[in-house]
């Protein structure tokens, strides 16, 4: 049984969207990042992520804040029943490292968690986050260089005064994936944002630079755990 993520809007500006998942023993996803901070609340079971070559486990009763732009690969959950709620909050306050904290509440279902409580937990983690280091701005500059122009990778590398190979190595080291893969993830995030704004899937696929709707659908599902059709449906 492969469960999909269920996405819904929070109907407020300070939470971009919510996603919930319940199940056991499946759902490893491709490494990806988001344009927003992702707050992972684990109600039961546990979730694990592969981040920067390390495994991070978020046990039941714990919340993790994955900063915007941080590459993470959700790993398959073990065979215990897991209930999880993700909340995506605007990255208005900078944060550069992942933190796991325990929330002192025993929720059974995701709809018992109020938006206020979600923001309180996110705010609590963010208020204790160290101020971002200079390395972070280097990273976001590199990401911007890759996504703001459609020029071939070699041309982007040349504009930064580097060889294509040297640039690829730097991107892999700083961003965790090869330049092409990074661009693809940025386009998937764009597709998600356009759908959230209400654009039809076919138009989203074209606007985000996918060859057709099925190409977008396939990559979207492997990365975000649901198909654009299901994601878009309110």
């Amino acid at each position, binding site marked *: 049984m492969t469960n999909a993520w269920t996405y819904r809007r929070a109907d407020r500006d300070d939470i971009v969207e919510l996603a919930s998942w319940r199940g056991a023993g499946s759902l490893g996803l491709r490494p990806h990042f988001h344009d927003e901070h992702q707050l992972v609340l684990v109600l039961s079971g*546990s979730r*694990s992520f592969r981040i920067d070559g*390390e*495994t*991070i*486990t*978020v*046990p*039941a*009763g*714990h919340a993790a804040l994955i900063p915007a732009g941080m590459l993470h690969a959700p*790993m398959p959950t*073990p065979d215990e029943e897991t209930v999880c709620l993700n909340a995506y909050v605007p990255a208005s306050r900078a944060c550069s490292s992942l933190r*796991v*904290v*325990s929330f002192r509440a025993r929720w059974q279902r995701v709809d018992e968690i109020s938006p206020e409580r979600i923001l309180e937990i996110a705010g609590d983690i963010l208020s*204790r986050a160290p101020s971002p280091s200079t390395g972070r701005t280097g990273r976001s500059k590199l990401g911007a260089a890759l996504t703001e122009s459609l020029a071939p990778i070699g041309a982007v590398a040349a504009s930064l005064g580097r060889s294509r190979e040297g640039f690829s190595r730097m991107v892999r080291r700083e961003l965790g994936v090869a330049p092409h893969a990074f661009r693809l993830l940025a386009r998937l995030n764009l597709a998600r944002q356009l759908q959230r704004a209400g654009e039809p899937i076919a138009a989203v696929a074209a606007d985000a630079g996918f060859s057709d709707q099925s190409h977008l659908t396939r990559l979207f599902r492997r990365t975000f755990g649901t198909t654009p059709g299901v994601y878009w449906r309110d």
Partner: protein
Amino acid sequence: MDIQTSLLLLAAGIAGGIVNALAGGATLITFPAMLAAGLPAVIANASNAVAISPGHLIAALADRGKLPPPTRRTISFVLVSTLGGAIGAGVLLLLPEHLFVLPGPALIGFATLLFAFAPQIQSWTIGQQKTATLPSTRASAAVLGLACVYGGFFGAGLGVILTAVLSVTEPNDIRAIKALKNLLATCVSLAATLIFIVEGAVRWPETLAMLLGAMAGGYAGGHLIRVLPAPVVRQFVIVAGAVMTMIYAARYWL
């Protein structure tokens, strides 16, 4: 839990089991392994305590013949250390996470220092007995209780502290100190373990992997005693503790 993590925990458990059988101080190796497995600090600490608790129990059982007779004094020590361990564990779970994470490197560093200076601490405390008369049960129990609160809270270096405290309070029977220390450490460990389990602070897959390793290591340690001299193992633990202190200080403080 992936294969890599399971193997890491199993290996750390084996190393911890051997170290505990020969010199003590396993937590300085096993607690960082739990953190490296990706667990949040408080959960890592609780799971670690559960994983190495059978080691304390086995040591206490092996030494039961040398225990002092169950006088009022020893019985009150047992009660106080059980209560202390439970309080320490309760404080750990009630405290906000960052109040454990921030002093974490200092706790590892403190335990490493305790361990490194154990011989000096021991000879100093044994020197005290000549000047002082046997302290009252109430005063001794109060000091023991404080040590056991620390033991339930973090646990690393509890053996060194208990040995030091007991050699001041019970100077008349040096041979009984080790057996009594093992008994009290077991009480602390069992009380804390019970609270961690009931409160759901234990991650079982990680804990079982390490527990299995610790049992195997503890068993092997008994046979390795001729091959691995205790001073060498002690130095290894001190170096490991120092390295862990620096790694976690850099990670949590910088």
